[in-house]
């Protein structure tokens, strides 16, 4: 099977006036299709920056990025948006649902941006909500849901356009233990049953244990790449 992510010699630094802070050094990372990777590291290690680069929310200073076999290094803003829409699903720590829209509309939104008709988008959104166990709550506003439910909605939204890759940035950071377990079980199932590639940022070993591979960053470099249990 082909690789969903191929990063080569990626560098990124932030500039604040005269001060340049290097964040990522010469990162090389390959994620095969269907892999489940946990990304860990202390704060300031560059894991969030790396996720932003992987998600085409930010641009690398140098290096090459092949996403699902396509070179996405030089895309313009509109092309990047299309890739984010079709190829990547995002799940954030703070859920990031649009608060004025109900649950169904939130899930349907990426489909509308993807050019689907309103009725097709709503039908697909309902199907996704059923899949994450929230089919009955589709008319509610996000504020009327618990944190765990909101995160499930966010996962449904991330999967709307059937992307091959899910990027989850501390998805359980705002959830209690039981809800965390439920959510991770959902991600496990998606990875196992649908072959969805997942890259998940976390700083909890319990969470990382769900992944089949652990990548540890420190000071902008990959310092460990192996099975989760053996992490030092």
């Amino acid at each position, binding site marked *: 099977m082909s690789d969903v992510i191929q990063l080569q010699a990626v560098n990124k630094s932030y500039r604040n006036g005269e001060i340049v802070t290097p964040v990522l050094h010469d990162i090389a990372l390959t994620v095969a299709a269907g892999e489940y990777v946990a990304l860990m590291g202390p704060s300031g290690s560059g894991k969030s920056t790396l996720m*932003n680069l992987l*998600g085409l*929310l*930010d641009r690398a200073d140098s290096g090459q990025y092949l996403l699902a076999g396509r070179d996405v290094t030089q895309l313009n*803003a*509109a092309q990047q*948006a*299309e890739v*984010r*829409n*079709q190829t990547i699903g*995002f799940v*954030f720590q703070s859920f*990031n*649902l*649009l608060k*004025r829209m109900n649950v169904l509309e939130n899930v349907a*939104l*990426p489909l*509308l*941006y*993807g050019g689907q*008709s*309103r009725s097709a988008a709503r039908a697909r959104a309902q199907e996704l909500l059923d899949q994450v166990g929230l089919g009955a709550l589709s008319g509610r506003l996000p504020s009327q849901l618990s944190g765990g439910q909101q995160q499930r909605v966010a996962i449904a*939204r*991330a999967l*709307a*356009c059937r992307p091959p890759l899910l990027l989850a940035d501390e998805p359980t950071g705002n959830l209690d233990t039981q809800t965390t377990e439920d959510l991770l079980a959902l991600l496990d199932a998606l990875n196992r049953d649908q072959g969805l590639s997942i890259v998940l940022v976390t700083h909890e070993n319990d969470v990382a244990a769900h992944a089949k591979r652990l990548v540890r960053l420190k000071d902008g470099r990959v310092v460990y790449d192996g099975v989760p249990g053996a992490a030092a």
Partner: protein
Amino acid sequence: MSFLQIMFEAFRSLAANRLRTALTMLGIVIGIASVVLMLGVGDAVRGFIDRELSVLGSNQLIVQRGAPTGDGRPRRQLGTDAPYLTLDDAQAMNSLSSVAAAAATLQSLFPVLYGDDSTQSTVLGVTPEMFRVRNWVVDKGVPFSDDDVRSANRVILIGSQIAEAHYLRRDPLGQVIRVGGRPFTVIGVLAGSGRTLDGTDLGELLVVPITALPLTLPRPRSVHYINVQSVSELRLKEAENDVAELLRDRRRITGDETDDFNITNLASIAQTGANIAAALSIGLGVVGAVSLMVGGIGIMNIMLVSVSERVREIGIRMAIGAKPRHVLTQFLAEAVMMCVLGGVVGIALAAAGVWGVNYAGTARGFSMQLSATHVLVAVLFSTGVGLFFGWYPARRASKLLPIECLRQE
């Protein structure tokens, strides 16, 4: 994303901030109301004057005794001891080459008796030239002739409203009307109705041969006015000069003696009216333009606030696949919708204004309409304002980088 979807989202977002939206729209409301009223007033006044001039003709002079006021306005005859104009003056004017027709007129209030109905009405005594000068059309029957004037025949023509009021089911022709106690036989009904610039109401006219009017004046053959029509609009000024010269000659006014008569140009009265209307129009136009400008800037300002308040929302939308043009249209749609809603309210306000004007003005022969063209212009204008002032904030939103949006709390 479909147009409907975009509009729905824009509406929802505006509805979430009702007070802010309403206040922001206010400038547009006032601006569009002013613009619609400006267009309406301009049209109405132009129509009014055109109608007047088409009835009276734009080549009309009114000559009366009394020194000119100097500002071109007609002067009241009372309080002057200048000698009356005469039938012979009118006759002499008729032979001027620049004059198409000159009609002498006497006018006074009489008790008028239609069978048993008695009223007080103004009755005009005129020479037959008056029909030509005023474009009076005889609907039924005939106008009177020079013979009727010479013989002082007691015949009368009546306006259409009088005919309707008093002879609903009878033929008015041949009926007898008593004017000042004397019997006059109806020989014709005049067409048309409505007030004209000189204050007469066509439908209410009572017209008899000038010599038959039972009015005693200090000297025989005296007349109140002479209505003059020049041969063409272009020769109106020439006719005015010719008439003045003729009268100075006949009344023996020489050198720098002041005239004891005055000549009023009806077109110039109409022109004065048109100028006032134009000034009003321009005034409303300026108010409209300034309001639209200020309102537009207000919308731009609020849209900039809205963009910076919703940076995170923009970031989320971009993350899930909104392209720059999606973000652009979203914010532009909000600005345009705000303007169009404001425009609609403004049009409603203008409609209320039009209703008010008509309520007060119809009796005076003035009415205005809210035309479809003006409404269309207003809607296009408000859309334009929305696009123009909404562009910059929307553009700015669409240029934001997703990572920077998402970092903002």
